[in-house]
């Protein structure tokens, strides 16, 4: 670049700074800008308050939506099926009623809500075309029910689920019933239990043995 001694550069810099001192920004312009600046300072305050208000409203709306969702969602996990391993059965299932999550209100409100959700879920399941029936042996009719289909499946129904099915008149059997017809949804939920005269013929039964009645301790 241009070879310039420091003194020459300093002199140019000095002359330039002096020239600048003689031609400062007009005071009126500065004042006008500061006035606009102050006006713009007020706008953000209004904007900020509007923003905060809108945030509050949106927050409340989101909270209401969330509560509504918690209250009114179909609660896919209302009817829960847990699988367990067993040496005696190909599959062991524990069916229980989880209850709608975080339903607020009194016991009565919660029960009403539970009924609504249950009803809706049952209707949805029954509308599905893939309902099938199986004959099973009812092995225990204490608070918890246990049903077996040969060595293929063991179903354990919680007392709450049994109570719920009974409430919806989906169980038509009594303590003396040994054989039942299970109405099952495609996804495995028990929709109804009816007493049947039909006896399940398992391979062992075909071979002349009665099904083994298993004394199981079922978690209450």
């Amino acid at each position, binding site marked *: 670049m241009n070879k310039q001694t420091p003194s020459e550069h300093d002199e140019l810099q000095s002359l330039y*700074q002096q020239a600048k001192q003689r031609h400062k920004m007009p005071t009126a312009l500065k004042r006008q800008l500061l006035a606009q600046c102050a006006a713009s300072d007020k706008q953000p305050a209004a904007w900020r308050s509007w923003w905060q208000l809108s945030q509050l409203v949106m927050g409340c709306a989101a909270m209401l939506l969330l509560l509504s969702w918690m209250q009114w969602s179909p609660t896919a996990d209302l009817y829960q099926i847990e699988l367990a391993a067993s040496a005696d059965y190909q599959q062991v299932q524990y069916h229980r009623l989880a209850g709608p999550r975080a339903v607020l209100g009194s016991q009565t409100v919660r029960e009403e809500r539970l009924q609504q959700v249950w009803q809706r879920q049952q209707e949805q399941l029954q509308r599905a075309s893939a309902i099938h029936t199986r004959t099973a042996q009812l092995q225990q009719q204490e608070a918890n029910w246990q049903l077996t289909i040969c060595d293929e499946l063991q179903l354990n129904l919680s007392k709450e689920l049994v109570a719920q099915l009974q409430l919806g008149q989906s169980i038509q059997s009594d303590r003396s019933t040994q054989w039942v017809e299970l109405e099952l949804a495609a996804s495995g939920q028990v929709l109804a239990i009816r007493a049947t005269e039909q006896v399940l013929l398992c391979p062992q039964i075909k071979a002349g043995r009665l099904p083994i009645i298993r004394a199981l301790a079922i978690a209450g």
Partner: protein
Amino acid sequence: MLSIPLSWAGTLCPDQLMQHYQKTGASKWLDGLIQHCGDDLYHFLLRQSDPALAQDICQQTWLKVMEKRHSFRADSRFKTWLFCMARNALLDELKRQQRWLSSTCPEQLVQPESEVSQSWPAARQQRFEQALQRLPFLQREALMLQLEGFSVRQIASITNELDETVKSRLRYARRFLQARLGEHDE
């Protein structure tokens, strides 16, 4: 958020002021920026145009700072951003007024005072200002930006030119000024 006392604004550099202004939008920070860079920008614009246009572009530029404060990148230098916006606005206006070509030629826009009964330093100051005004627009621009403290790279960024082009303009500008100032010393 912590609020910084107004008196502190004077101790902050333009980049720090801009960061605060960007975050808060409070006028005190813009006030500080105008106090720091207002005269520099106005003088630059004045030398490149005329008082009316310089005031107009100056106002436009500061309004843009208010409007576009969120688009300012924190890693860039505020003064570079400011001068870049001002320079672009000035060129647009000169082109719109069809003054761009004429402005590239020396023009006596800032009236020098009479040399009669001036002291030697005052006369030298006047010769400097006259010589500055006689420089071609782009050379004067490069030189003034350098005297404002911008590096060659920053000048290239403001003027959207290559570093070498800026260096060349600076070389010619300085030679011209030294020649003009030297003539009268002999």
